[in-house]
């Protein structure tokens, strides 16, 4: 942009304020379209593979293969999310950094606790594969739904809140659908909600 310091008309000033603001906001916050798009894809592909591999389902590929691919996609998404967020927050210090870090850790700790609880049920109570499967679909959808709603409250985003409510409905529905179709609820309702949000944010970024 030119460093021209000529006098500005009020209309030019207002236009400059909004264009500069949009540019700064884009650079300071990680792309929501990218983050939701990436996680939506991981979720959709990963759980669909799990469905295709699960015993009692179509069994089109070995369960270990689906598990390895899904785990790799999750690790990749975690790494990329961390990099993208760190890049956006480069050179910024102050209270918003703390709130961002606390928010990020809430997701991580929430999923760690959920994992521990689900493994605990399997190991301590020896629950059936069916119950295990239902635990692993309803739990993540519930945690994701609640945290998405919390993020929506913070960002004052109604579309994000609606996606959160949808995830809660999907969490409840997945249990009633039963196995192995619950994995498809997780893939399409869960991944679909995130991909829908990605589209929403991509469209918003284009008009900004």
């Amino acid at each position: 942009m030119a460093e021209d310091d000529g006098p500005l008309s009020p209309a030019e000033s207002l236009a400059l304020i909004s264009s500069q603001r949009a540019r700064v906001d884009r650079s300071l916050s990680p792309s929501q379209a990218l983050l939701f798009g990436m996680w939506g894809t991981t979720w959709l592909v990963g759980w669909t593979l799990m469905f295709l591999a699960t015993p009692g389902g179509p069994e089109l590929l070995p369960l270990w293969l689906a598990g390895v691919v899904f785990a790799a996609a999750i690790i990749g998404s975690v790494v990329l999310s961390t990099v993208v967020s760190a890049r956006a927050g480069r050179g910024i210090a102050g209270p918003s950094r703390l709130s961002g870090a606390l928010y990020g850790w809430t997701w991580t700790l929430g999923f760690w606790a959920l994992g521990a609880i689900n493994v605990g049920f399997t190991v301590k109570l020896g629950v059936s594969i069916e119950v295990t499967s239902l635990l692993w679909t309803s739990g993540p959808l519930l945690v994701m739904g609640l945290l998405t709603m919390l993020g929506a409250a913070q960002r004052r985003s109604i579309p994000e809140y609606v996606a959160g409510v949808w995830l809660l409905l999907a969490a409840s529905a997945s249990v009633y659908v039963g196995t192995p179709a619950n994995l498809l609820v997780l893939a399409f309702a869960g991944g679909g909600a995130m991909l829908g949000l990605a589209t929403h944010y991509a469209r918003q970024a284009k008009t900004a």
Partner: protein
Amino acid sequence: MTAGLPELDPVIHAQARLRVTVALAALPSGDRITFPRLQELLDMTAGNLSTHLRKLEDAGYVEITKTHQRRTPVTYVELTTKGRRAFEDYSAALKEMLT
């Protein structure tokens, strides 16, 4: 306020300083940004940015803190409460002129 058009703050009403102010105002209140990151956001030369920051600092709109992180000097810039208010007044005055 007297009748007629409001005055525009001359400290902010200059293209480069307006851009600096907008970038700083985009940060949540209380947050600070390093000089190089600000420079990157604005795509300005270091000399140019320093000159404009000094004028904003003289007006009390910007606070510049020099500190060290692992022995490397770091310069942080933030908009003061006075600066934030001045920017709000400036934006309000612009809107008033256009209505």
